[in-house]
């Protein structure tokens, strides 16, 4: 179901909204996030205004399979952050229905409990994963510029884009659950490579230690973890129980220590530069995709008519690529 009333907001003065957001008005932050999610020129304007103000927030990505207890865990983590006098923000990403584009976003209830200073925004992937790759960095920027710290991005670690946006965080946490083959799943989804910290949640479960052992074995075999370049060792594994809060304080300490280590070892700059590059790449791909679609719409039929049946798809695409970068073929 589409609607029109936010047009009004889009046309309102984004600069003024920005001032209100940075002076702490939550409603203005909420509105800016909608503008970012909507994409296009207004979102770009928000990005321009926000970019000079960013860099203060510790960005934490949390991902894992569905049902791993991520939301409850995030709720406990923001409580720790609030206790430490911080002003956290959470971006809780859930998939949209591929059929209808709609979504039911139910995570915030589990995050929200008693954390009055935390700003929580529920985000749907809105069908096209490219949108998420643009909107998540944009929303993180709004939070950072508005003075929120830390900014936690929570995703279900199933799609490549979800993994990617989590992986561009300063600290990436991968959550696994006992009894569900999660360690193996995480390996398959490419999560082992991006994790700075592993969490085995539901530590009271009988299979928790098995998962820990599986993770250790896989990490020993792969040598490809994000933490290796920071601490020179394997990514730490923290056992937690998000129901009773066991291990949460330790996890929070591990996360903040990871960040301090990044700062002290000067690796934060590299990470942030990588994040910037990833975002630019996403934007570039989106732009190219738009150009490709445009070109296809303009040229494909004519090109096919002009070629014979034996022309291979690769030849067609090569010809279009040439046109894309050399300009249109004038003798058409």
């Amino acid at each position: 179901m589409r609607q029109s009333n936010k047009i009004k907001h889009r046309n309102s003065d984004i600069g003024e909204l920005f001032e209100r957001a940075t002076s702490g008005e939550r409603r203005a932050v909420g509105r800016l996030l909608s503008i970012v999610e909507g994409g296009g020129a207004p979102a770009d304007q928000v990005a321009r205004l926000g970019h000079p103000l960013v860099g203060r927030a510790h960005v934490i990505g949390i991902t894992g399979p569905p049902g791993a207890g991520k939301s409850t865990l995030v709720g406990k983590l923001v409580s720790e952050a609030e206790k430490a006098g911080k002003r956290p923000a959470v971006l809780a990403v859930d998939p949209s229905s591929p059929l209808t584009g709609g979504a039911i976003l139910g995570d915030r209830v589990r995050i929200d409990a008693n954390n009055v200073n935390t700003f929580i925004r529920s985000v749907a992937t809105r069908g096209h994963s490219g949108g998420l790759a643009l909107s998540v960095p944009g929303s993180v920027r709004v939070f950072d510029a508005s003075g929120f710290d830390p900014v936690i991005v929570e995703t279900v670690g199933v799609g490549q884009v979800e993994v990617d946006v989590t992986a561009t965080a300063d600290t990436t946490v991968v959550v696994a659950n006992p009894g569900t083959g999660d360690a193996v799943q995480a390996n398959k989804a490419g999560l082992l490579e991006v994790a700075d910290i592993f969490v085995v949640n539901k530590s009271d479960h009988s299979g928790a230690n098995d998962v820990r052992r599986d993770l250790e074995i896989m990490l020993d075999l792969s040598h490809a973890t994000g933490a290796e370049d920071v601490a020179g060792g394997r990514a730490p594994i923290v056992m937690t129980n998000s129901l009773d809060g066991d291990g949460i304080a330790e996890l929070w300490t591990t996360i903040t220590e990871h960040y301090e280590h990044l700062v002290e070892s000067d690796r934060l700059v590299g990470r942030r530069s990588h994040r910037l590059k990833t975002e630019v790449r996403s934007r570039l791909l989106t732009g190219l995709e738009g150009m490709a679609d445009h070109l296809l719409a303009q040229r494909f039929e004519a090109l096919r008519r002009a070629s014979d049946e034996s022309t291979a798809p690769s030849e067609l695409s090569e010809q279009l690529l040439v046109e894309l970068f050399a300009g249109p073929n004038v003798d058409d």
Partner: protein
Amino acid sequence: MSEAASSVETESSSDAPLRIVLAKIGFDGHDRGLRVVARILRDAGCEVIYLGLRQTNEDIVSVAEQEDADCIGLSMHNAGHMTLAPKMVEALRAAELDIPVVVGGIIPESDIEPLKKAGVAAILGPGASAEEVGRTVRDVVNARA
């Protein structure tokens, strides 16, 4: 026909799905209707921020701000609608949030007019069809645009 035409126009003017907060206030735990409506709205292309049971007016106002909600849907099955629904409307007004409130549930015919007078944008009865739910939400949001 004209309704169809205008909805196409609406669609082309913005891609953003409607964002709707669904909640129940107070003790009442009958959430079957709320969960069904959540699915109806999802399948109509809305983004539903599902808060579920035992929310307070303050909770809902705060969530509506953070989520930049277009509409708030409350479900009531305990006959408390005559006190609870107007209080929700009042809380939004006090916070200067211009967001329509739709109430669903067991609402006797005679209570509909007083609720509308109190500022409730629309009322959906127990037998409301999916089509009716979708149209009502779209209409109350567009009326505020």
